[in-house]
């Protein structure tokens, strides 16, 4: 009775990678924010939720899914920059608990604001028509949208990598992650880099939310789970490491997908179990740096 055909396993693997891709986008944003600002963003999933709503609004206005995805990143990125500028900036250099409390407060307040504007019930986001079909790869059935998620994430991550490695701004971000005071002494206004970095981080969260929206529809409280997932992935992969976010995200995606397949009721617990296991073996996470001062 435990004979599971290999093509079903291959399909679960594929589902897991697609789910993992969403987690990767989510937690690479969190990783950038933590690395650059030392802020643990409790509202990260909330910004992903805003991304889902942004894609809903833009699609209903423009009719185009791609336009929706791009504008979700831009809109939420700008909201993030405003939030950082108005609320987070005054808290730097004070008690490190304060930014944490602030983002926690945002994670409560923003969903309520969304409920007032859009109502308590979620908004469905349709799959784009071209991607709603399935693909047969031998005897493995591949849903078109999941394939799109994987390819899209790949493109997004390569662009992010090129941006960080090749552009001047990316170089400043990498440098500021390690020594922002020295970067400032070299004439660079680090305060603006922080604002941009926070916008970039929540923009990535918004991309995750927007791309996930057709599979789960946009609901005001979807951010809670996404924040938790981002935490788990970041802890598994190692705080502040982009490579860790990628490996951790894919790993957690696979764990959740396979658990959902063999024992559906345990699927959401499985990632915490996986996290506990990894922390027992390697307390700093897979790719984490050894304690920084």
């Amino acid at each position, binding site marked *: 009775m435990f004979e599971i055909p290999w093509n079903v396993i291959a399909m679960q693997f594929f589902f897991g990678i697609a789910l993992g891709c969403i987690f990767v986008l989510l937690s690479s944003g969190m990783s950038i924010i933590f690395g650059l600002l030392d802020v643990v963003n409790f509202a990260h999933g909330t910004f992903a939720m805003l991304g889902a709503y942004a894609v809903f609004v833009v699609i209903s206005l423009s009719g185009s899914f791609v336009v929706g995805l791009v504008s979700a990143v831009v809109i939420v990125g700008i909201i993030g920059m405003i939030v950082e500028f108005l609320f987070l900036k005054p808290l730097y250099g004070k008690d490190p608990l304060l930014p944490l409390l602030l983002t926690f407060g945002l994670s409560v307040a923003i969903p309520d604001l969304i409920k007032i504007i859009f109502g308590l019930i979620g908004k469905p986001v349709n799959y784009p028509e071209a991607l709603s079909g399935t693909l047969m790869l031998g005897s493995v059935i591949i849903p078109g949208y999941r394939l799109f998620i994987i390819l899209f994430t790949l493109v997004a991550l390569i662009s992010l990598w090129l941006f960080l490695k090749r552009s001047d701004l990316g*170089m400043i971000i990498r440098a500021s992650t*390690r*020594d922002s005071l020295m970067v400032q002494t*070299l*004439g*660079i206004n680090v305060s603006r880099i922080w604002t941009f970095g926070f916008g970039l981080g929540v923009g990535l969260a918004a991309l995750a939310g927007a791309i996930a929206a057709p599979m789960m529809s946009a609901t005001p409280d979807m951010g809670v789970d996404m924040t938790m997932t981002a935490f788990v992935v970041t802890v598994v992969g190692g705080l502040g490491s982009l490579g860790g976010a990628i490996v951790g995200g894919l790993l957690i995606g696979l764990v959740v997908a396979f658990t959902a397949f063999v024992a559906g009721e345990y699927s959401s617990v499985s990632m915490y179990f996986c996290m506990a296991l990894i922390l027992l073996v390697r307390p700093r996470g897979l790719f984490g740096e050894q304690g920084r001062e």
Partner: protein
Amino acid sequence: MLRLEDVNTYYGYSHILQGVSLEVKEGEIVVLLGRNGVGKTTTMKTIMGVQPPKSGKVFFLEDNIAGQAPHKISRKGISLIPEDRRVIPNLTVLENLRLGSLMHTKPDERDGLVEMCFAYFPRLKERIKHLGGNLSGGEQQMLTIARALMGRPKLMLIDEPSEGLAPKIVHEIMEIIKQLQKDGRTIMLVEQHMEIAMRLSDNQRAYIMEKGQIRMCGTLDELSCRMDEVVQCLGVKV
């Protein structure tokens, strides 16, 4: 070029700089001597805006820059070479250099500046693709000075370049600092050891600090004539 007038700087409640006044003229090397913990590094940080003064004035090219943010002071043409070097460990040598010039130069000027840095420090050229964190202490010191040069500073604040380096490397770096002055740069140098400072040139001036105040000043020749007092300020090791 640079003039500090009655500068007072605090770390929390402790009064570190107690009415420091000094002057650096264009083209000269001024050495700030003193024992550990007398406020030499704090003086540098105060000028750079990293540890702003509570009172007093810092004039640079006749502007009072006291209280301005470090990046604004940097853009005015002051460059700090900190004692702990602060090479960005996750950037390559070339990226570290480019970082130093981003806010000070146009993109087409940067390659020329990199070449100039390699002329001063040929060893950096061999390590151009290495990460800053993988360099030896001496190489990091060279990179820090080169990174400052990339911004074409009008005034270089060099904080204890000899710290923790082998005598041979110290000699090498001191030769470069001499060369920098000959090439027309203005330098303020912090040093603990007078014999290292003596190697630079004979007509340079020095300030000797003690307990957050300037105790003595003059050319190194003048100070040599008052060796007894100097020894008292600097401790046994002169």
